[in-house]
Each structure stands twice: as C-alpha cells, then as structure tokens.
C-alpha cells in the first residue's frame, strides 16, 4: 500500500481536515422533488368553485372557443360531440370534464436521464423549475443584453448545480444569436448534455417538437419504450400556451399533438393578463382560464387518450394606467389559489406561480414581488412551479443574480412544505428534560445530534454583525449572489454521458441542421 493511502494517525473524528473537507464539499446537485406535508390553503368553498365551473361550461357552450388553422382539431371536436361554427367550437356543458375524467392521469412521472432526478408531477408533489422564455439576460457586471446560447448553457448549468431546483426548465433564455428555425436543437441538446435533470421541449413548430421527441428517444435509447405500457416513457414536459382569450392557435396545437401522440406531457396554460385577456375580476379571470384549459386538456385526450397533461394558470394583473403587466400583486394570488382548487376538482396536476416580478434588477421590488407569488404557489399545492428562478421585468430578462437568489428561496420553501416533525426526535422531550429552566440548549445531547440539519441555511443571506458585514465590504444580496453564480460556473462539471449517446445526438443535430437553410422566420 503506498504511503499516501495509509490513514493518518487518528480515531473517532478526524479533526479539522475531515470536517473541512465535508463542510466545504459541493452540496448534492439535487434534492428529491417535494412531497407536501402541510395542509392546502383555500380561498373559496365548494359552492364558489362550483359556480366558476358552471360559468366556464357556459362560456364553452354559449360563447365557444376558437381552434384556429387546424382542420384535424375541428374534426376531433365534431366527432366528440361539439358544435362547430367555422373555427369556433361550442362544447356542450360537461363534455370536457367527462373526457378529462375518463382519460387524463392525475399524476405522471417525468423521467430524467439520471433516474435519481426523475420527478413525479401531480398529487401532493411540488417540482421547482427555472424561468422560461426571456429574450434578455441581466447581470451586475454587464447589465441587460440579448441572451445567447452560452447564456442558455450557463442557466442550464446553474439549474443543474442548484439543489433546490428539481427541473432544468425549457427556454431558460432565448438564444437570439442562433437562427430561429434551428436554435431548438442546441437548446434541447444543452439540457440533455449539461444537466441530468428533466427538461422541457420546443413548441415553436410541430417539426421542432418532433425533433425534441427524436432527441429524447436517442437520449433514452433502450429505455425509451416502457415495457409495461408499450408506449414511450414521458421524458419531456412542454409548455402549450393559449392565445387568450379563448383561442387555441395552429402552432401550439401542432406541438401539442406531436407531444401527446408520443406520450409526452403538455402543460396547457392560458396566459391571462387580467383586464386585457380576461375580465378584471378574480372570478372572471378564473372562468376564462378554466374554460381555455379544459378545452385544451380535453383536446390532448381526444388526440391521445391517457397522455400526461397539466392544467396551467399564468395570471397577472396590469397597470390600468399604462397597460403594462404587474406582478406580485394580491389579485393574481387569489386567482392562483382558486385555480389550484379547480385543477384538483378536475383531477389533473396544476402549474402556476414562479418568482414573478416587474423589477429590472435584483432589488427589493424583485424580492417582494417574487415572494408574493412563490408563497401562494407553494401553499396552494401547485405541482409544477415554472419560473421559480431567474425571472426579471415581467419575464423579459433572465437574471444571473436573481437566479441564485430565487434558488436559495426555493430551498426555504421546500423546508416549509416538508411540514412539522412529530416523531420522538421532533418532540425533543429529552432535550427539555436535560436542560431545564434557565440554561441553554446549545450543548445538550439533542442539539449536538441535530444542529447541522436543524435549520435551513441560506447560502446568500448575511447574518453577521454590522461590523463584520462592513469589514467584508458592505455587500448587498445582489453582490453576494454575483459572487455565488460566478463561483458555481467556475466549479461546474458536466454530468457524465455515454459517449455513444452524445455522438448520436450530435450526429442527429448535424444532419437536421444540414437538411434545410438557416432562417429567422
């Protein structure tokens, strides 16, 4: 045995070297998705929820909803019993609910290439995913600029390195340096290569959805087909937005059909800026949201019965002075609580929330507004919380500092959702007996056994004395976050991937890119 492998003189604990090594080591890349152990918070009783359901059915039957540019969709609806008037579909009362009840799963597993990172979406579970869609990125050093594929990769890396984010997300920023008709290949590959967490697919055209599915099939190889069902495993969850109010368009329907037929999950999300795309009231916004969502979800089941589907709700208020969307306001939080309850009554997983804000920089406005949405989202029992990390200025910018600040908060919320430990260890009667009146608990056996994990510790909050904080350069939260994301990216190592799989993915991308000219339309 070479000298270096002889253990040092020692026993018991191994002193400073061992403890430093353990405490300074990078934390696990991920913790399991959340299983909520606190009660749901409700703002309406059954009577109120039933009223909204009645009104949504009235909208679908009487006003109708458009399925635009998709003859197949109209045919499917006609066959299901809806009335068709041009592209407007009038859906009889109760039809959507009966289709959904018959076929849509209450939960599903989204498989990750690393099985330890797979997530269950639905039931009592909550999954945190990064923000989706910003064309700009922002950091303290360079300010606001268009996102590039390197920014995209960076946010995939940061999500991979953030233990409290269970999901890699989708369009973590828009890589505007790549051609519109091919950038999805690099985006999907980035999720596959630089992370091993589950991810979202391209929805900007049916063929780009098909590319996503084809790449997932290469990534999963022999594991692609589930022998128990004979269908593909669900490896992609993709965001299908309604063109609110009351319109489903051909682009989204095309991607929806592609994913549903491949047994991949669709996240059906009415996008409501209340006052613009729905009435200004909470009940009005919920009614439009539920009508659009039920039509979209039922449609997935007409296309592919049993395909995984989520009811999404993105609802923001607007400034009635300027028309600008506003975030962190109380009315959308009320909508969120109501929609979560309506999704449960419909029997499908629910998506909403996020660290939403209108702030341009990671300041107090950003933090307040984000908390005002994240907390309701968690208390409402939301199953999939997109936009958990990074969101700035109404989703126009992805912030590097904001990302790590939000990820830190996600850890706090996870602990909150884990609830209260009533076990003998949680009761801690031994500690109370040991210490008694007038002494402190810092040294008792129970504290010695539990101190390291007793409290969720923020990686960014500064709890030191004023003098120490001052001596360390008076850094505010954003400055500390700036140092943290840089350190994370510097220390990042990609998760291992089978070289043959990687080659096959790169080969597929090369062939697809060569098959047609670049285009930005």
């Amino acid at each position, binding site marked *: 045995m070479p000298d270096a492998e002889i253990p040092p*003189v020692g026993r*018991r604990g*191994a*002193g*400073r070297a061992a403890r430093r090594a353990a405490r300074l080591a990078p934390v696990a890349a991920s913790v399991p998705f959340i299983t909520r152990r606190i009660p749901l918070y409700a703002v309406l009783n059954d009577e109120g929820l039933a009223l909204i359901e009645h009104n949504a059915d009235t909208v679908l039957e009487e006003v109708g909803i458009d399925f635009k540019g998709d003859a197949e969709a109209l045919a499917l609806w006609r066959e299901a019993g809806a009335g068709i008037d041009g592209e407007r579909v009038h859906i009889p009362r109760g039809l959507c609910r009966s289709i959904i009840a018959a076929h849509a799963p209450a939960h599903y597993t989204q498989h990750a290439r690393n099985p330890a990172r797979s997530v269950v979406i639905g039931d009592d579970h909550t999954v945190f995913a990064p923000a989706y869609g910003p064309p700009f990125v922002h950091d303290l050093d360079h300010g606001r600029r268009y996102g590039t594929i390197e920014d995209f990769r960076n946010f995939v890396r940061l999500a991979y390195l953030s233990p409290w984010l269970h999901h890699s997300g989708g369009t973590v920023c828009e890589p505007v340096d790549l051609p519109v008709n091919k950038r999805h290949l690099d985006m999907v590959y980035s999720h596959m290569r630089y992370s091993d967490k589950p991810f979202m697919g391209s929805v900007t055209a049916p063929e780009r959805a098909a590319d996503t599915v084809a790449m997932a099939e290469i990534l999963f190889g022999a594991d692609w087909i589930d022998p128990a069902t004979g269908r593909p495993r669900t490896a992609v969850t993709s965001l299908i937005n309604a063109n609110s109010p009351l319109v489903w368009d051909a682009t989204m329907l095309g991607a929806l059909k592609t994913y549903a037929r491949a047994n991949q999950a669709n996240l059906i999300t009415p996008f409501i800026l209340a006052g613009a795309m729905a009435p200004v009231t909470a009940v009005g916004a919920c009614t439009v949201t539920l009508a659009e969502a039920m039509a979209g979800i039922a449609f997935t089941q007409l296309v592919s019965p049993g395909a995984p589907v989520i009811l999404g709700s993105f609802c923001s208020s607007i400034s009635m002075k300027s028309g600008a969307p506003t975030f962190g306001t109380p009315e959308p939080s009320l909508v969120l609580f109501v929609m979560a309850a309506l999704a449960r009554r419909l029997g499908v997983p629910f998506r909403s929330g996020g660290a939403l804000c209108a702030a341009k920089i990671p300041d107090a406005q950003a933090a307040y507004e984000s908390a005002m949405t994240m907390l309701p989202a968690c208390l409402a029992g939301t199953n999939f919380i997109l936009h958990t990390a990074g969101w700035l200025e109404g989703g126009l910018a992805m912030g590097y500092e904001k990302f790590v600040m939000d990820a830190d908060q996600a850890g706090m919320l996870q602990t909150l959702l884990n609830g209260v430990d009533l076990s003998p260890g949680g009761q801690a009667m031994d500690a109370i007996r040991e210490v008694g009146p007038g002494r*402190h608990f*810092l040294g008792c056996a129970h504290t010695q056994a539990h*101190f390291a994990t007793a409290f969720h510790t923020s990686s960014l909050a500064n709890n030191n*004395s004023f003098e*120490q904080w001052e001596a360390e350069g008076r850094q505010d939260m954003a400055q500390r976050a700036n140092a943290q994301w840089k350190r994370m990216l510097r220390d990042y190592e990609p998760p291992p991937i089978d070289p043959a799989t990687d080659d096959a993915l790169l080969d597929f991308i090369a062939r697809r890119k060569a098959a047609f000219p670049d285009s930005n339309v």
Partner: protein
Amino acid sequence: MADELDLNSLNDEELVGQMHDDLYDGLKDEIEQAVHILLGRGWQPYDVLTQALVEGMRVVGEDFRDGILFVPEVLLAANAMKAGMAILRPLLAETGAPKIGKMVIGTVKGDIHDIGKNLVAMMMEGAGFEVINIGINNAVENFLAAIAEHQPDIIGMSALLTTTMPYMKVVIDTLKEKGMRNDFIVLVGGAPLNEAFANAIGADAYCRDAAVAVETAKNLMARRQGSVQERARA
C-alpha cells in the same frame, strides 16, 4: 466512541497533532489523558498549554469564524480545552508561567439575558482564559465583589436592552471613582451596542461577537504584559 488508539504509543509530535484533532472533535477525556501523558514525559505545563491546547483552539476559532464549525461543536471543543486547563492551571501557578488572563464577566443590572454572555465566557475559556461568570442582573456591587475576590485582568459586561446598557457606564464610573479603572481591561458587548457607545462610556473595546471578544482580549492582554499568545507566536 474511541476506537483503539493508545495515546502513549505516539511520539510527542504525533501526540500534539492528535490533541489538535481531539480538541477540534471536542473529546474531553482524550484531552485530559493526553495532557497527563505530556506532563509525565517531562513537558513544562506552559508548553502543553501553548503548543497543544492554545494552538488547537486557534484552529477551532478560525473555522468557527469561517462558518465551518457550528456553535455546539465549538462548545464541545471549549469544554475539552477547559478540562485540559483544569489540570494545568495549578501547575502553571506553581511554575510562575505567564498568565493567559482572568476575566470576570456578567450581564448588568436590570438585564436578565444570559446566553450570549455565556457564549463569550465559553469561547474565552476555550482560548485558555480563566473566566468567572457572575451571571445576570449584576449591580455594581457584584462586580466590585468579584473583582476583590478574583483579581481579574479583564471585566466583561453584557446587555441586550437599550434600557440596561447605560448601566455599564455606572460600573465604569464607579471604578474611576475608586481609582481602579486602569487596573483592568473593560470589554463590553451585546446586540444594541456599537463601538461609539463603548468609547462614550469609557470601555476599552466593544466586542461584536464571542470570537471578536477572544481576539480583542488576547490583543489587549498582549499589550499589557507580553502575554502567552505573543510569546507562543514568537
């Protein structure tokens, strides 16, 4: 807890290294045993103190400051240090070795907050100081009595309330009246204090936390008498 390691089988250098690890791990029995072994090998008590215990606790203090160690772990380490000191203290007195220092510490009159002050006492003991902790709600008479009985080098006062912190000045003014003020280092601490307050009442230093209290005490003691720490460093 202990697996089989015979401390007697280690040479001096290995044993001191092991003591540093055992202090870090808060192993009181092992520290006591090792102190006896070194003394049995003819080591001077002063060398055991500086090379084994103080040096070991210096590392603990560093890692506490850097957020690697938790308070309960430092408490265990300080308890192990204290056990070693209990063996050495009478021997140090006999040999006339330089003193690390003695402190009387208490929360001032009207204030019943105990725990922060106790953490300071613990950390001071961990650094080798002898600490007389006179508890909470101490009128100036209590401080004077403790001073008379223990002849400390340092007086530490604590307060958590803005309504009680002015009493620190009462204690210091009384010392001045009695012509005793310059006989002691006066350290003050507590959440509502700052350096300006400490200066205004005539204290020697404001200590924002327990680790700073130890550092400040060491530095001021070194200035007073060329202390153990200074000599160990040299």
